């Protein structure tokens, strides 16, 4: 039996649908996703909830998973994520190649940072395997792989000194911001789109908030006050996005990354707004669950099966872009695409649970 619907799966399903839509640039429904009113977007939510879910592997404080088991399980998870990433990247490359051939348009080979794969295949394939070359919109799983490899250390620190985990994580985060530390890409010159040195903070905060000990306990005890404090932050951030009141990055003091908005470094503006967002919106789940049970069931189904759904969503987003290019995008094409995509995400999740049921010994 799959686990019953819950807020974490629901919001993860919400993030998956948002990511699917946001990854079809220009699609009509993109304007209705929350990134249009928010300094942060679904990526923060997805990574935060991944950190939250780490609690299931780490075990309860009174019955913790032994460390060696933890290392094996999380290492295995990292390997699964890596394999899933390689599979969807290869599918994406093949989809671009087939589309370029069938549509007689070699420019499609340059979509989403794929040019290097076709123009410089020897080095780029090495880069793909090393995760140092990433396709556009296919760059979040490499971050997950790194986070999973770091997860045993995160769990260990939390186990030994729960109050130390968040400060250590934030120290790494602020060091990356102050010293502009990044992870370089290769063979093309650049940097990882999701800087793991910064995004680990979102993951750690998700994990810490999920725990009864340490900062998580404090958050639970003070959630009412936190929501009161978060509401004005959220309103101010929404106004900033809506009226384009972003700080001018050239006019802020050094270190600039502390004061500007940037997804790569998930800068403090994004991080604080995101934390305010979850503080406020976490209160809404019971209301939504009561008012829209079918929606909650559906999104929870997606959220329970996040890896296959994410992989399907990534491939479907790319397919959607190719379809939009071929059929000349418009409202009806976009509606059909998004509707078909969301249904297919549901089918993917259902198949994953069906497979688990079938494989389960009687």
């Amino acid at each position, binding site marked *: 039996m799959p686990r019953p619907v819950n807020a974490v799966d629901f919001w993860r399903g919400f993030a998956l649908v948002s990511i699917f839509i946001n990854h079809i640039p220009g699609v009509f429904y993109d304007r209705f996703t929350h990134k249009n009113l928010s300094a942060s977007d679904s990526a923060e939510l997805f990574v935060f909830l991944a950190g939250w879910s780490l609690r299931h592997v780490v075990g309860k404080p009174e019955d913790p998973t032994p460390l060696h088991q933890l290392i094996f399980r999380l290492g295995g998870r990292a390997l699964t994520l890596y394999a899933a990433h390689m599979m969807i990247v290869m599918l994406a490359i093949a989809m671009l190649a087939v589309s370029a051939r069938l549509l007689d348009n070699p420019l499609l080979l*340059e979509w989403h940072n794929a040019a290097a794969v*076709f123009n410089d295949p020897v080095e780029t394939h090495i880069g793909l395997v090393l995760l140092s070359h990433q396709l556009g919109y296919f760059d979040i799983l490499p971050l997950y792989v790194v986070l999973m490899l770091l997860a045993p250390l995160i769990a260990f620190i939390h186990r030994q000194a729960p109050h130390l985990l968040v400060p250590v994580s934030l120290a790494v985060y602020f060091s990356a911001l102050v010293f502009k530390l990044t992870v370089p890409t290769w063979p093309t010159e650049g940097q990882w789109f999701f800087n793991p040195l910064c995004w680990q903070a979102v993951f750690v905060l998700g994990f810490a908030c999920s725990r009864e000990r340490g900062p998580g306990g404090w958050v639970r005890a003070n959630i009412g006050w936190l929501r009161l404090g978060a509401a004005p932050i959220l309103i101010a951030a929404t106004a900033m996005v809506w009226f384009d009141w972003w700080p001018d990055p050239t006019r802020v003091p050094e270190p600039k990354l502390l004061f500007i908005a940037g997804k790569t470094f998930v800068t403090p503006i994004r991080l604080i707004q995101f934390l305010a967002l979850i503080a406020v919106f976490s209160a809404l789940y019971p209301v939504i669950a009561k008012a829209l049970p079918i929606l909650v069931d559906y999104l929870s189904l997606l959220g329970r099966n996040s890896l296959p759904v994410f992989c399907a969503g990534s491939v479907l987003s790319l397919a959607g872009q190719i379809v939009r290019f071929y059929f000349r995008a418009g409202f009806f094409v976009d509606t059909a695409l998004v509707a078909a995509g969301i249904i297919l995400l549901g089918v993917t999740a259902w198949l994953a649970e069906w497979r688990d049921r079938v494989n389960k010994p009687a």
Partner: protein
Amino acid sequence: MERQGQQARVRRALTIAATLVAVAAGAPCVVHGQRGQVLAPVPKACETPGLSVIADSPLPNIAIALKERKKINILAIGATSASLRGPVSGGYYAVIERFLESTFKGLDVEVVHRGVSGELASDAAERIKTEVALNDADLVLWQLGTADALAQVPVADFFVTVSHTIAWLKEHKVDVILVGLRYTRSMVRDLHYQAVRTALQEIAKDHNVLRLGRYEAEEILERIRREQGDVPMSQAEVSEASYVCMAEYLARAIAAGLFVREPSPLKPPEKSP
């Protein structure tokens, strides 16, 4: 046979080079700077008899950077795959660094690559402001248009995004060179693709910024190839040839821009042989 192949390849490169630059901001081409300084000629493979380089849209901010700091920071961004190392030692943009540093003794040029092939102008526009601030950029090389046209981004949205970004850059005393759309035969009659291309030309004209016309270069290359019955070049070869020559001519465009003068009236590009 081999010699003929080589000649054909050189001819193609010449054509690409000529057209790349000739259409830059629709401006006339000169091989020398504005105060009589003679720039080093382009390499043989990118050279074009009867057509010399460089657009004279001024790049006043890098000229100031040269004068005051002896250092120029260049940000390469947008839907470019020029961050590939390619056949040139150090990558295509190393050509620019080397050329400028040898032309202006004591000048330190740093090119920061933040391009992602296939990136939309709206995504790049968001990043440009941050990257300009983080890298103290004096000049932005922005390759754009192709991905937007393929993704069916509305032309009006594209126009507004790019115009606003250029205005922001100018307001912040950052020069910009636009590197235009790519060419492929299947897009010649694509109304949306051509509309984006026209929009980019208009933007460059409105803001008086340099635009390198890769489309025009590759289109002529394709035509010559067809007319002469040459062995077709692969898209990768076309990309490589145009990137190499693009870098050579960009270097000279920037160098010419360093000898600042007021822009002169625009002339139509010369026809390639």
